[in-house]
């Protein structure tokens, strides 16, 4: 039973941050596409902005791994 709870918790730990990151990056991507369409010089900055919410899912992954191992 303990094992099951552990894996379930790990799944939640990676799943929920992933949904949050997806939501955040989708909004950023949509706004970024509009900005690039008007001013192509900001492409570099937009790519960087797009990658900033990545942290959420990476930290969630770390917690999941720490639980499993």
């Amino acid at each position, binding site marked *: 039973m303990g094992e099951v709870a552990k894996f379930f918790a790990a799944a939640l730990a990676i799943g929920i941050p992933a949904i949050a990151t997806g939501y955040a990056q989708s909004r950023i991507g949509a706004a970024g596409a509009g900005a690039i369409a008007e001013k192509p010089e900001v492409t570099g900055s937009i790519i960087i902005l797009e*990658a900033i919410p990545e942290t959420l899912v990476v930290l969630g992954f770390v917690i999941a791994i720490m639980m499993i191992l």
Partner: protein
Amino acid sequence: MLVPMTKVEIIGPKKYLYDIIGFFHQLGVIHIQDMSNKIRPGDMLVRRMEADEESTERRRELENLSIKINSIISSLATEETIKAVSQGEKEKYYFSFWSESCDELKSEVNNLIKKLEEETRELATLKDKLELEQVTMARYETIFGKIKPLAKQLVSLKGFETVALLFDRKYKSILDEIRSDLSRITRGQFEVISTDVDEETTAALVVFNNRFSELVNSSLWSKNVSQVRLPEELSEMSFEEAFLTVRERRAKLPSELVNVKEKLSKISREWLTKLLAIRDVLNDRLREFQVVYQFGQTDYTFIIEGWIPRRFIKKTQAALRKEFGERVIVNEVKVSEHELEEAPVVMENPKWAKPFEILMGLLQTPRYGTVDPTPFIAVFFPIFFGMMLGDVGYGLLTALIAYWLRKKYRSPFVQSAGQIMYMCAASSVLFGFIYGEFFGNLVEIVFHRLHWPFFKEIIGIRLPLNRMELIKPMLALAIGVGFGHIILGLVLGVVNAIREKAKRHIFENIGMIITLCSFILLIVAAKKLLPNQLMTPAVVFLIIGLVLLIYGGGLMGLIHIFGTFSNILSYARIMAIGLSSVVLAMVANKFGGMGGNIALGILLAGIFHALALVLGIFSPTIHALRLHLVEFYGKFYQGGGKPYLPFRRTGGENIG
């Protein structure tokens, strides 16, 4: 480092004005400050400079010439012709044109324009027409090919007009509308046949009595259906003949186009270099005329205000003295703190830090007098990258990719980015040895163990450090590195605050440093890792730090502590991304092992390793960059500087 600048004032008799402008244009070091907005209209002594009649007239003529030359160049310039231009020859022409006086230049350029303008314009329009015809002929051929069988079904009657229509297949229903409309208008004297041209379009032929031509045409037009407009020559023939004519024409077009292009490139080969040089000369001369508006004047003298890098001052003064004697003087002006902020900013960095200057493009130019962050990011960015990627195999592949990129693309941005990649790759290889990772745990799978022999004796820890096992210590390391980096940022913030004489900021930053250090000391002493007597001094320091913080930053200073703590914790991503990189490589190796036979295994593992490589280059770059730009720079960086744009001659392709 931001190059130190001096503000200068150049004063001389008005008759030397244009000579001085030419002199400084040649020298190319002064960044001219616009005086015109500082001079008030009612000022007795100093007035705004205006160009006189003669110069305005000359400027207008040069502008006209510039426009015409530009249009000739745009007819001749294509990718190949531009590449064929030799920079050396262009510079030779540039200098020969520059040495001519305004009138000589004008007459020579006018002759050139007279010779070339008409011919190039004709050829360019002909080329565009032929290219357009190519496209339309291709379309017509397909359409006529499809309409031909339809047309056979119709009898060609005199007094009846045929109109061909094209529309999207999904709007086929419009045919019924057309039928009903036409039957109403023409009282049944019409016929409509349709067929599909390709997957998207349908063509239809409408035949109707000539009498109703106007009404039918307007009704069709109101339906927004595109009619196939036939060029004059074709509308008289039957569709069969039109099809053959179009096909013939289409066959002839390519050779005609090649002919025209050949003529254009012949002209380019002969004249383009000269034309480009003339364009640059005209632009520079025009710039000389335009810059006059930024000067000031009194009754007999002109006044120019500008900034020169400090190390060029002596040279400038010597050159000026040689050329003009004592009649024109260069004064170094003492500037107030406020004015120093307006000084232009140019960066100068040692060779190992220079590639990182391209990252400054992501932020505002730093303010003059602040610390140039480039050397710091040059040291720590590769370190963070290496700590995150940390794999010998991936590091070597990154170096290969950097080599290929530098070879393929010549732009300075890619060259600098390639150098950054080299440094990051070297760092990855170094940390790869420390972590004992070569394409993940490939070595452990093959050789069953990995152990660097001498390090336990030398440093006291057993190398390599396996990232999968040492998760918590790695986390502590990452946060420790973050702590150090943030403290460095705060120290730089103190330096900036001292340079700007902002007392509150000095206290705020020092207070923050003391608070953070004493916090750590407190935690360490509480956990009994250091002797317990340190508890009391730690608490004392903590209180001192908090007091300084509140004195420097007010109550917001206390809120900033939480911000700084979260910034430090943000560095945990170094461990997180590193771990995810290890796990990806492990998964890749496991997939390889599951294959069964070697070839399939290598293929599968190769695919996953490629994916891990892409993620492993992209992700650490972005996050190391973010750690610098957001957390590190947030502690000391001040934007709002003006970039250094010296009054310099172009000699190259781009205009200033």
